[in-house]
């Protein structure tokens, strides 16, 4: 449990008994259903597609995938929460719902401020240089031009993009996936977030960057945010999180202190 810091500015609605148990994310029986077009068997040819359109058979074309089934939990300020589970268990989907990018089918997600989701699979704008992406990312997050200018060097230094030459002035499409992920993490981590969610970011960077980002996550937590981390690397979960949610087949299987849940998970996966 995080220790209450006397320097933290306390909000107006401060509960006198427990200033340290302020919820930041509440998931209330969240269900998420994907509707997938083109997930049908049958022929994938143009004539087959035309045939389906002519015969108006939409039901056959769209399949439903129930990715998250009734997950409820409450996250508090200052917590770092790991999300574990086998591939396809709904971890990333749940994060997207918390970020407000994917409206839940049933149930609700309440958040304090705007959660930010940090994924590794896409660069920001591939055609633009890293330099431009830093500026645009900062502005898009709502930083002022002065703030961006002031933080620019920190962001570039933190990402370590320029350690092997002047890569920041090259278009992002020329970056390796690891480099792009590092730059994205650095941009998003430059601002204080109420809720920061990281999707496997720590697994992609090299050792040195992993260390640095773990430290940065600790700093972000001190600044009174909540951090969610999806990872298949139990070590990085152990190093950064104090609470773990275990999802399996879209259901919340376990929620508790890191050691307890990881022990059960490792037994389940047969380690």
């Amino acid at each position, binding site marked *: 449990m995080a220790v209450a810091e006397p320097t933290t500015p306390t909000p107006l*609605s401060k509960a006198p008994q427990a200033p340290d148990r302020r919820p930041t994310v509440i998931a209330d029986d969240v269900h998420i259903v994907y509707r997938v077009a083109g997930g049908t068997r049958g022929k994938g040819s143009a004539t087959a597609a035309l045939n389906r359109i002519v015969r108006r058979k939409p039901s056959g074309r769209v399949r439903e995938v129930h990715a998250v089934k009734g997950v409820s939990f409450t996250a508090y300020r200052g917590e770092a929460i790991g999300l574990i589970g086998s591939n396809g268990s709904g971890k990333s989907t749940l994060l997207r719902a918390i*970020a*407000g990018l994917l409206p839940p089918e049933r149930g*609700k997600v*309440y958040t304090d401020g705007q959660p930010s989701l*940090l994924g590794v699979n896409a660069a920001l704008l591939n*055609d633009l240089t890293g330099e431009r992406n830093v500026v645009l990312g900062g502005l898009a997050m709502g930083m002022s031009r002065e703030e961006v200018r002031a933080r620019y060097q920190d962001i570039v230094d933190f990402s370590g993009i320029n350690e092997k030459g002047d890569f920041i002035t090259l*278009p992002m499409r020329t970056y390796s996936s690891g480099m792009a992920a590092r730059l*994205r993490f650095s941009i*998003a981590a430059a601002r204080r977030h109420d809720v920061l969610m990281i999707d496997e970011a720590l697994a992609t960077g090299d050792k040195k960057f992993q260390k640095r980002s773990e430290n940065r996550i600790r700093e972000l937590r001190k600044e009174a945010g909540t951090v969610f981390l999806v990872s298949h690397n139990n070590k990085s979960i152990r190093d950064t999180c104090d609470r773990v949610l275990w999802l399996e087949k879209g259901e919340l299987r376990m929620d508790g202190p890191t050691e307890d849940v990881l022990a059960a998970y490792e037994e389940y996966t047969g380690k």
Partner: protein
Amino acid sequence: MQAPPHPDDGLTPAELAAKYGLSVSGARPPLLQYIRQLWQRRHFIGAFSRAKLQAQYSQAKLGQIWQVATPLLNAAVYFLIFGIIMEAREGVPGGDHNYVPFLVIGVFIFTFSQQSVLSGVRAVAANQGLVRALHFPRASLPIAFVLQQLQQLLYSMVVMLVVLLAFGQRPGLSWLLVFPALALQFLFNGGLAMIFARLGAGTPDLAQLMPFVLRTWMYASGVMFPLHAMLAEKVPPWAIDLVAANPAAVFMDLMRFALIDDYTYADIAPYPWLLGLGWALVAGVFGFVYFWKAEERYGRG
């Protein structure tokens, strides 16, 4: 975690959320608040459109020269086909010598609307990386793309200026009318881009279809031939007015009226400024509200 009983323990999730002022994640903000958020991101919008403009030709060796060369080559092709081969120059107000200014203005002004629609269709769909990674009012994207096209048009206007002077047009007070005409067209294009951004986010197939729709629109708007002269003997006058009242024709005619000496109000659709203002307001307001209505759904897919 063995914590002592907490006063919050008996609350339902909704009550707990209300107590600490938590809001539903991803909910669409009210319209006025949305406009305020958009205003806060104005520097982002400006920086984004400038960056896109520069990235556009970053892989070409001549680089930014293409900003000016592309519209010029476009005008040259249409001059070759319509001015020389098909001799469409008859009927241009003031006589044949006005055909090249007429054509160049038409091509540049129509391109502004055309490109706004085309980039609008892809505005959200092609920037999913940004949309999924960061939170900002999504209307920033189509607006930034229309701004990019406006900047592109301003480059083209330099070419236009040279052409006008070369073909004997003299700068006059009426040239100042360029500014209100551009402002109205910008508003119109912005609305159009937002409508197509929402449609394109749901149905990416539109990117394949739109070039054909736009080409039809171009031929129906009198970009390279004067509508009045072309249609005069074939259809009744009210039909000509109807065709000339379509937004692309209106904005082209306003610009030609402003820049070409021999143009009078008799040569263009009746009430051109009112028509322009009407189109701008209808498209701008409807497009903005229509786009905002789906704000929470753009991260999907």
